[in-house]
């Protein structure tokens, strides 16, 4: 906990004036610098040793005192860690490896400051933590466990339960059980993993037995019986599930502490949405596949007008609109999504594993007088390297601006406004960002928290003068600069020696003689070859006869 990173407060006090000088009012106004403004390093700790992806990071005002803290989960250490400013203030063990972590504000009846809940999904539970209160000794940043939700097991076929019950009390032979379960499987019934393993084991043994004599059948039954014994003692079969992703519905996008609701997704494709007081599940949706990433649109003030976009493992993105899964609004992808982000209330941005980012409209809306229908592809971005992480930049200035940023494996973070690149940030080429989150940090409004592949954490403050509209053509992509640098590197034209040049001069002078000599040699070679051939045919005939004899 005493471990604190480098704090670079010096650099960021000079933000407005990079030269550090006070402006002279008499001096002519300097033209705006051509180079895009730099990101300010607020704090970095290369030794933080956190292996959090974007799903396992969040920023939240845990104590409700306006001081935003960074919460991250380390999957390797099974810990949830809290940083305040540049200090690791709290570490808390977790019972299982964390799957996802999100902070949300539940509706409470208590007065006073509102404090967020921290939800951590692990195994088949979702744990809810809360930040500590303010005591005489200062702010207590320790997270306290609050309560947990256990995901319900899925219903088991009654026929299957019956088979296993009878197997347990030996009133059914293994062969009969095998046949009955196989029949149930072929009828398309959803079976428990135990049954599937039993069937797979049985079939594997069946295939192994090439000659079906009694001995082998016995051997098969023995293995199956052993399996049955090991399983039936554990009681009836169950179909448990585990959590795969967490999301948050913000009711009002503008307020940081507006009421928000937690979403959790399960391995069998269910999406549960908690009620506003976070005490019960208010809605459950069934999707055809397990959800890998979930994102919710923001920017809509009306409650319930959110779209929940779910990127699933079957390479599709399903959308829950107005409280129902919209069967018409499904995006088939060419490659699996490797992240998901929403921009505003209408657009979902899907980076795919083939280095292409697609943006689709989630609702009918109009942009610059152009009518856009829900489900329409708006644009695609073709990135030069694969996407390591993605986050929405919710920039708070005079007005809120939403941009989406991608960290790519070539060591860049690129932020886009629509299809226009607006801001780039060069990070370490060999150590790309695997997790990113944009939001408040400490008392700073617009900060980007990035976790590198090596486990280092860094916080950068977005340049205040950064042009986020994409109208400025000077704001060139750094890789384009690299292209012009490449264009400036001279070609590696092979060098020729002086000897070579002398030889060319000789050839120019005596080319005719060379050609004649060559032709003469060629004729001689052909003649010699022909002679040799004749000789070989003459001798070879005899040789062939000898060989035959």
């Amino acid at each position, binding site marked *: 906990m005493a471990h604190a990173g480098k704090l670079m407060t010096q650099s960021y006090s000079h933000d407005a004036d990079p030269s550090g000088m006070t402006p002279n009012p008499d001096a002519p106004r300097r033209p705006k610098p051509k180079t895009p403004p730099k990101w300010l390093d607020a704090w970095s700790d290369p030794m933080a040793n956190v292996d959090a*992806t974007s799903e396992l990071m969040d920023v939240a005002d845990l104590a409700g005192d306006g001081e935003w803290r960074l919460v991250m989960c380390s999957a390797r250490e099974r810990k949830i860690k809290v940083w305040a400013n540049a200090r690791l203030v709290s570490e*808390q*063990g977790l*019972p*299982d*490896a964390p*799957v996802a972590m999100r902070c949300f504000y539940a509706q409470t009846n*208590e007065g006073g400051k509102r404090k967020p809940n921290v939800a951590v999904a692990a195994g088949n539970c979702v744990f809810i933590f*809360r930040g500590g209160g303010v005591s005489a000794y200062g702010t207590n940043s320790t997270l*306290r*466990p*609050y*309560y*947990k*939700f*256990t995901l*319900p097991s899925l219903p088991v076929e009654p026929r299957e339960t019956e088979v296993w019950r009878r197997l347990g009390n030996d009133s059914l032979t293994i062969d009969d059980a095998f046949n009955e379960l196989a029949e149930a499987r*072929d009828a398309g019934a959803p079976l428990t*993993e135990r049954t*599937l*393993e039993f069937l*797979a*084991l049985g079939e*594997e043994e069946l295939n192994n037995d090439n000659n079906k004599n009694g001995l082998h059948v016995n051997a098969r039954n023995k293995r199956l019986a052993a399996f049955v014994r*090991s*399983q039936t003692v*554990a*009681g009836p079969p*169950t179909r*448990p599930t*585990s*959590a*795969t992703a967490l999301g948050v519905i913000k009711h009002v996008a503008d307020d940081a502490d507006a009421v928000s609701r937690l979403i959790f997704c399960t*391995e069998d494709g269910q999406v549960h949405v908690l*009620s506003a007081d976070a*005490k019960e599940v208010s*809605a*459950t949706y069934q999707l055809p596949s*397990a959800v*890998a990433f979930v994102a919710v649109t923001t920017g809509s003030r009306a409650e319930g007008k959110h779209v929940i976009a779910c990127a699933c493992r*079957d390479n599709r993105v399903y959308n829950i609109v107005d409280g129902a899964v919209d069967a018409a609004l499904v995006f*088939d992808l060419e490659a699996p999504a*490797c992240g998901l982000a929403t921009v505003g209330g209408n657009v979902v941005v899907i980076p795919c594993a083939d280095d292409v980012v697609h943006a689709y409209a989630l609702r009918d809306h109009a942009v610059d007088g152009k009518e856009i229908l829900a489900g329409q592809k708006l*644009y*695609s971005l073709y990135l030069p390297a*694969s996407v390591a992480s993605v986050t929405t930049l919710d920039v708070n200035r005079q007005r809120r601006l939403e941009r989406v940023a991608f960290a790519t494996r070539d060591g860049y973070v690129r932020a886009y406004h629509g*299809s226009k690149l607006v801001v780039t940030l060069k990070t370490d080429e060999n150590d790309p960002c695997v997790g990113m989150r944009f939001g408040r940090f400490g008392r700073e409004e617009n900060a980007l928290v990035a976790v590198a592949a090596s486990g280092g954490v860094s916080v950068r403050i977005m340049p205040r003068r950064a042009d986020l509209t994409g109208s400025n053509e000077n704001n060139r992509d750094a890789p384009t600069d690299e292209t012009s640098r*490449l*264009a400036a*590197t001279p070609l*590696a034209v*092979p*060098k*020729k020696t002086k000897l070579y040049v002398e030889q*060319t001069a000789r*050839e*120019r002078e005596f*080319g005719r003689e*060379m*050609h004649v000599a060559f032709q003469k040699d060629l004729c001689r070679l052909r003649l010699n070859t022909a002679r040799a051939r004749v000789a070989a045919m003459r001798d070879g005939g005899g040789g062939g006869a000898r060989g035959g004899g």
Partner: protein
Amino acid sequence: QLVLGACQAWDGRKSRTAKREAGLLCAERAPMYSGQMTGDAAYESEPEVEDDSYVDASQPSAPAAKVNIVPTKANSSEAKLQAIARSRWNYKIHILYVRHEHKECLDLIEQVLSEFNGMCEYPIYVKALIKRQQGRIQESLQLFQAATALNPHNVANLKQVGRSLYLLGKHKAAVDVYDEAQRVSTTEDWEIWHNKGLCHMYLKQYDTSMECFRSANDVQRHDTTYRQMGKVFTLQERYQEAIDVYLEALEFSPDNPELLTTVGLLYLRMGENYRAFEYLNNSLSVDPRDEKTILAAGSIIQDHNDMDGALIKYRVAAVKTPNSAQLWNNVGMCFFGKRKYIASIACLKRALYLDPFEWIIAYNLGLVHLTTGQCASAFHFFSSSINLKPDFVAAYMYLAVTLAKLDDFENACAAYDRAAEIDGGADFTIRLNYAITLHNGGDVERSREQFAEFESAWLAADEESRAADPDVETQAETLRRALGV
């Protein structure tokens, strides 16, 4: 309702050393949150958990650690844990897979598989996907079949079996598997249609494959489907239709650099250089480092005699693909255009080293050597170019010019005859060169004949080809005077 019995210390060691710190305690409400969950009826009673409900976890409980290290004591909660564990890593496997962290992903899969005797469908599925990306298709096919054995009703497995068969070149078998997948699948799937189309394309059943691609696009439009449709048309040499398909695709995704390049190349093939250049340039503005596009755009720039412009483009490509024979060939011809003959020969020789069986490089080398007056070398390059591609007219003509310069009159005439024979009389330069050579060789009679042929070909030629080289006219005038025609 607080179910205190379910409270448990999660980590035995921790609770001894730092009880309050680590003795994490939750009010477990599992019994209420189970069974049928419809709407708000998930809980029977209001939870009475206060903000700071926090109970010291000193009472011992069953260790809830990893299953494989706990002795198999019959206990229902353990069986439940084991079953949870089986799918609990799927999310991580998926994330590692889609983020291209294949090594870590395989490590995790192996760990999970060894824990559960290899009886996990999803880890096997992802392992197969990774193996296939590594090029071990046969192995991946076996793994997909294993996954199918575990869960025969999963369409995803069937689709991947089909894909592996397709990659192995067993297109017929793949189509059968896709048919089966379509039967099992409840929804229309573009991917199945698309892949079926691919199989039919390789089976040369172009119409069927076209139908499949159209069905795929009816389900949902994709760039890759459009690209394959264009490819089918190109294979059938229906270029205009291919371009129409690509243009439709560009309406759908206007910034796809691959589509832009393909359209550019097609226009180039159809001889519409201006349009081709437009598309290639658009493609370069999206992806300025694609070597195929750079080569195509550079060659058009080169055709317009802007050698420096082309060289700048090639420099970018040279960093990315330093071993491309085509690139070095084009660079060599740029230097030729700039009259830097030594650099030109050096680049062309590197190109020939990289691809010794490319006739055009040998031909270009012949041209450069002929220009520098190294006729003996030029002869060798022209003759090897002819050996590689015996039907290229210009090579014969230049061979003849070279031979004439080497005073090998008879062979020169033979080469001219061959060139004229292949060309059929359309190219007037052959006739003119022939006539000049014959005149220089003293055979005035045949020279007159060839000159007459030249005149008729010259009159038949269009304005553009006549204007291409002003030298032709002056040479013709000189010869006309010499022959006294």
